[in-house]
């Protein structure tokens, strides 16, 4: 109980709400860095994966991408990036960008490749061109799976951005890494609370985006939450 009251005191101290080591600034850094990494990965990874999924080419590569990604620890990716580029914001960005790619590739590919052939055929039957069929029929049908990939990537990036404090970058990880170094467990705990909150918020806000952008006609088909993890399809990895 005593410990928790110290944590509460930590949060109420004015000095923790100002300046470059203040909570608002650390949250800002964390969010901007994560958004930049995920945004760049979305631009680079999703379009080619959608095309490959539509053509159903290189499926094994696309699907095994996230399996292989799971075997490479994000911690190792981050430290290796620091060894190549040096410390600071750049290695953090590069590592987070790299980590965001596998779930985006796999989910975009699987989403497009799993669109029922009947659906694209009826689009053709209605007189749609190939492009119209992709844009107006296949993509909306694939969207839930594609967005699930974005959500996975984003949650993973927000989590790993915490570790980026190890390569001398800011973000909320600073409280945890510095706290551990100074054996200041109150700071460690407070940092962990902030990181956990930010992760859950990321997950929830992207779930909301998913709800509002996915066609109503599709939603009940994806009610079955109890799909097993089967190596490939929807790649969720804790970090």
């Amino acid at each position, binding site marked *: 109980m005593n*410990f928790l009251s110290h944590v509460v005191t930590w949060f109420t101290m004015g000095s923790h709400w100002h300046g470059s080591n203040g909570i608002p600034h650390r949250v800002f850094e964390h969010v901007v860095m994560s958004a930049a990494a995920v945004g760049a990965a979305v631009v680079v990874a999703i379009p080619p994966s959608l095309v490959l999924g539509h053509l159903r080419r290189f499926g094994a590569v696309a699907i095994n991408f996230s*399996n292989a990604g*799971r*075997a*490479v*620890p*994000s*911690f*190792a990716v981050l*430290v*290796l990036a*620091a*060894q190549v580029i*040096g410390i600071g914001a750049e290695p953090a960005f590069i590592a987070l960008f790299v980590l965001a790619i596998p779930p985006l590739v796999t989910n975009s590919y699987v989403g497009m490749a799993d669109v029922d052939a009947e659906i694209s055929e009826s689009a053709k039957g209605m007189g749609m061109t190939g492009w119209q069929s992709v844009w107006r029929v296949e993509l909306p049908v694939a969207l839930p799976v594609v967005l699930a990939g974005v959500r996975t990537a984003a*949650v993973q990036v*927000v*989590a*790993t951005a*915490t*570790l980026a404090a*190890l*390569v001398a970058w800011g973000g909320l*990880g600073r409280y*945890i*890494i510095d*706290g*551990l170094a100074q054996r200041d*467990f*109150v700071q*460690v*705990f407070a*940092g*962990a*609370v902030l*990181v*956990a909150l930010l*992760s*859950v918020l990321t*997950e929830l806000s992207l779930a909301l985006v998913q709800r509002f952008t996915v066609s109503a006609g599709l939603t009940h088909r994806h009610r079955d*939450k*109890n*799909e*097993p*993890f*089967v*190596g490939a399809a929807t790649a*969720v*990895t*804790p*970090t």
Partner: protein
Amino acid sequence: MPGPAVLAQIHEPWIRWDWVSSHTGVITHDLREHVVLTLIAVGVGMLISVPLAIVARRWHWFEAPVLSATGILYTIPSVALLALLVPWTGLTRTTAEIALVSYTLLILIRNIVAGLAGVPPDVREAAEGMGYSRARQLLRVELPLAVPVIVAGIRIAVVTTIGLVTVTALIGQGGLGQLILDGLYRDFRTEVVVGSALCVALATVADLTLVGIQRLAMPWTRKRGTT
């Protein structure tokens, strides 16, 4: 503007084999530690998941709360979960294991439940018709048929845990993560490379071993593309 540390790094080779050969003791110690941390995590994870999944299968109202609770645990970053535990359980292996076990739960429970749910109803009815009790039906019919999906879950849990173990280096555990962290602090690339490469190798070997065991123990799953 590269500082002196960065300049030194440019001349540092990616791997110094003389260091590797003179430190095989440290490397095998960390590797063994990594394997032990992973085995305990997935083992304890199974001990918790199997009963929870069976209960969730039988009493459906239990399924949603179990899956959402483990789902929330799954969303919390490992560094944060470790940090939340440190004030209570210290910089210990217990802290590392609590975190590692909690990440296996969602994967394992979800796959056990899905595996049990995937047993065809006519098979179940046949067992019932043959006079199998509920317990016997579960043990002799449903669980064996669910094994491919359960093994798929174990594989993912093992590979995921091998990656996560590295993070526990931050609280003084970590197996091969110790090498990576030490390499980072000392600006010594060889340690980082050896630690990372062994991690990937360990995950690959573990995954292939599980596939091999499954094929040997259940030859009928070979053709079904469950791997």
